[in-house]
């Protein structure tokens, strides 16, 4: 049983690391700040989610697992909202009439 869990963890963490790689490639190669922001926000957060999934299989009990999910949700929340703010500094929204 623990072998299956280990295998699932390795799979998920590898997938997560792949998405981090993809996000960084995007960061390095995309031409303008907004597309780089897109790569950062989407790919890296997905990578984090997969890493957390992999670590859940290794978690020592329910409180530890809930804490991991909590960290992921917080990062997701903070990331989604703060990247909007950063995007606004690049291209300000239309001023109110």
């Amino acid at each position, binding site marked *: 049983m623990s072998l299956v869990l280990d295998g699932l963890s390795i799979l998920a963490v590898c997938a997560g690391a792949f998405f981090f790689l993809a996000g960084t490639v995007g960061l390095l190669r995309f031409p303008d700040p907004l597309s780089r922001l897109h790569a950062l926000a989407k790919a890296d957060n997905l990578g*984090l989610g997969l890493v957390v999934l992999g670590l859940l299989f290794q978690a020592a009990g329910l409180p530890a697992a809930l804490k991991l999910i909590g960290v992921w949700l917080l990062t997701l929340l903070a990331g989604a909202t703060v990247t909007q703010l*950063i995007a606004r500094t690049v291209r300000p929204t239309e001023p109110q009439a």
Partner: protein
Amino acid sequence: MADFMFAATGLVVAMVALGLVRLLRGPAAADRIMAAQLLGTGGTAALLLLADAMRAPGAVDVALILALLAAFVSVAFVNALDRSELDRK
């Protein structure tokens, strides 16, 4: 298993380092603010992996603080930027 987690952490840190090289240099101010966000996600992932690899559950709390404070610093940067835009008008 611990070795695998260490390797994964190493990969994530390498990705963060590469990203930092690009972002800290980037001409747009938004690029530098993104460096804080990059550390917020990448650093959190690295810490969670380390927490498992080193059997150190305290590192999960560090990841919590990292996520929170990366957001705080990003907002501080955005604010500082907005103030400079206002100053120029």
